[in-house]
């Protein structure tokens, strides 16, 4: 059990240690935080973290020459990848955060500012319940209407067919996307206590 080689992609952005703490707690021992091509190629699954500004995130990824490597591993070799928060937003065509910035373009749709009714604070910070459209594989161990921790001002306005889960925050906010081997979540499973741990376990159990 838990023999998968998991690589958390290190591109100088994001809370890589929080994710690694949660996975270590679950017993995933073959875990690396790395930007090495060799590690990424050997991995059974990849995690693309991300916190902060979109522009800096995509620029950093490109500076480390990771875009080409990831395109090959994900699009050609069909390696499973999970984007978290800004890491999920990078799966999109691009983001409108502080001008237009191109993403990895693995999924159709743009990242847009949360335009919400007056009474909703922006960013959305806190625990929101999600409605799950697609249980397998990400939510195989998570009940519908479970709560997860969100912290974001922008959201992925994706196509309905890739929308795996959403939450209500004045508008329908994308909580999770999936297309073939590409997965992403807007919330932070590594900070979502029991539900977050169940999420990780369900997701990685699905990977052989």
């Amino acid at each position: 059990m838990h023999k998968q080689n998991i690589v958390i992609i290190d591109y100088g952005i994001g809370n890589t240690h929080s994710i690694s703490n949660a996975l270590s707690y679950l017993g995933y021992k073959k875990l690396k935080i790395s930007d090495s091509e060799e590690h990424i190629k050997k991995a059974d699954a990849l995690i693309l973290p991300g916190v902060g500004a979109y522009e800096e995130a995509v620029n950093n990824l490109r500076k480390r020459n990771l875009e080409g490597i990831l395109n090959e591993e994900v699009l050609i070799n069909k390696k499973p990848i999970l984007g978290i928060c800004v890491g999920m937003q990078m799966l999109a065509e691009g983001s409108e955060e502080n001008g237009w910035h191109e993403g990895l373009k693995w999924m159709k749709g743009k990242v847009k500012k949360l335009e919400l009714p007056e009474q909703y604070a922006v960013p959305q910070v806190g625990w929101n319940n999600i409605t799950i459209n697609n249980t397998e594989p990400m939510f195989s161990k998570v009940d519908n209407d479970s709560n997860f921790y969100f912290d974001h001002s922008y959201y992925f306005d994706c196509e309905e067919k890739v929308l795996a889960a959403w939450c209500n925050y004045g508008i329908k906010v994308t909580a999770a996307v999936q297309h073939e081997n590409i997965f992403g979540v807007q919330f932070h499973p590594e900070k979502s206590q029991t539900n977050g741990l169940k999420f990780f376990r369900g997701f990685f159990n699905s990977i052989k």
Partner: protein
Amino acid sequence: MNHRVIARLDIKGPNLVKGIHLEGLRVMGKPEEFASYYNEAGADELLYMDVVASLYDRNSLKDIITRTAKEIFIPLTVGGGLRSIEDITEVLRYGADKVSLNTAAIKNPEIIRQASEAFGSSTIVIAIEAIKQNDGKYLCYTDNGREYTGIDAFEWAEKAQDLGAGELIVTSVDKEGTGEGFDIELTRKISDAVRIPVIAHGGPGKLEHFEEIIREGNADAVTVASMIHYDYVSKNKSQGEFKGEGNVTFINSGKEFGKINKAEIMDIKKYLSEKGIDCRYINE
């Protein structure tokens, strides 16, 4: 959206402490024990404040953050004595998810912009410690309410938001530790002045106070310290000896503090839910 109930732990050296008006600190126990309990008891986040920041060694804080981050998977905010981008980088590396800044931001507001650009707005929480003046104005203070700045709390809240703060923790120094209830006027005016989430801190002594501050004060989240600490201490004998740093007479005496009702975090959440305010429950 669920309203957050955040467990606040004031830390002095290796100990959890609690004061009144941010002063007169009593030692309560070991922070990690309380943190672990509050995590299981339904706290939505943890907030560690190093209340004697920079005066004592920082290694205790580092150890406390590191240990917490390995076992507790809810958001952890750390504040107190963070003066520079380097200090912020350091506590984030230990395992904090967000940082709370007060003095450093008042002295150099640009640090809010720099920090939010470097780490994301979601990581930067600005703490406002306000004291109501005789003329009705609220002014910001630093160093646990000791240092006068002359800065208007409402103007500062807006400025902090514009510079990139992701959230505000608003402390009423007048109410803090008293059990008299949150400062509704202060919280309401700040909440009206900004779009970012406002976390109310300081003053709750009974369950009604939480409903008041959310409904009338328009708080997005609340912090609680004394009520849950006294509850925990009354139910658990903390392990180990307490030495140095802080007044240990209280914890050894087993006394209770009159104006503050003891409560579990879930007591607060159940109360709020009954009043129609949504809260997160841990689903098993």
